[in-house]
């Protein structure tokens, strides 16, 4: 049996904490796995923060969690302004991640860069956390005009029933 969750929410920061809590509790109920709960909560939170930070104000944001043959997929879709630099910077960030030997190395490099520059806000650390701490492969779909869709994929944890 597969899980599916979808929320269409307004572009408002205060929604993120509630969603993180909701996702964490769903993950615990399905997987009974603290690591999966923490990872899914963090991934959703980071992707939603990016959507709120860089998305078009006033447009809705969609979060979905589902499964495919490779495992769990967290997807966040949001509108972006035409002049936004976010899409190209996000693509560059994902390309850079893929060029790193592993997510741990990317994480270390990202932290070193923040330390050197003293700027966390535009560091792109969220995407690196998703890859390293969340164990996710990240893809970005910008095929629709003025919309960015980010997928974060990770292996499915064993369901609680399967372990019992």
């Amino acid at each position: 049996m597969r899980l599916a969750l979808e929320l269409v929410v307004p572009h408002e920061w205060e929604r993120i904490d509630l969603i993180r809590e909701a996702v964490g509790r769903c993950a615990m109920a399905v997987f009974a796995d603290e690591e999966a709960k923490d990872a899914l909560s963090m991934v959703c939170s980071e992707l939603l923060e990016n959507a709120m930070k860089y998305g078009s104000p006033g447009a809705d944001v969609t979060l979905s969690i589902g499964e495919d043959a490779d495992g769990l997929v967290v997807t966040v879709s949001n509108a972006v302004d035409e002049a936004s630099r976010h899409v190209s910077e996000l693509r560059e960030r994902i390309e850079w991640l893929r060029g790193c030997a592993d997510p741990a190395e990317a994480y270390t490099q990202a932290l070193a860069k923040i330390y050197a520059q003293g700027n966390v806000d535009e560091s792109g650390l969220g995407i690196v956390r998703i890859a390293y701490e969340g164990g996710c492969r990240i893809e970005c779909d910008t095929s629709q005009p003025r919309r960015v869709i980010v997928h974060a994929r990770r292996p499915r944890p064993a369901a609680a029933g399967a372990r019992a």
Partner: protein
Amino acid sequence: MADFRFSIDLPVTSRWENVDLLRTSVQSCFTAVFQDVDGCHAIAMVTGELLENAVKYGAWTLTPGSFRLRVEGGERGATITVENPIVPDDPNVAALIGTLRWIGGFANASDAYRAKLLEIASAPRGGSASGLGLVRVAYEGNCTLDAELGERAVRVKAVLRL
């Protein structure tokens, strides 16, 4: 105006702790999407009652494992469906159908609620299941209740109007 909504479809193991995890999760989802305090309490109560029934009355000895929770919510209401395994001639299913018919026999859910409270108050203590949970869903949750019977599962659906 954007069509804000949410949907949840989860396989859940039959553990009591999952009732509270999912009740509060559904409540948080509803609040995150709609910021509707009254609605979030109603949907949480309905979800909790249906999940409790699934854990309590599902045929877990013969078919251990998972049941299924589905919730779809919009601005005007929500549909909460819980599906759990049953066995042939399951007495819990007969009781469920009996309770739904009993509720349906009243002019409104408020009358059913009052009658159920009187029935519980006059019954000897420590008796069998009261059926109050489903009556709460109908009255306090303002829900229409329905049950679909399959060969190996029963699906209880509550349609909540906000």
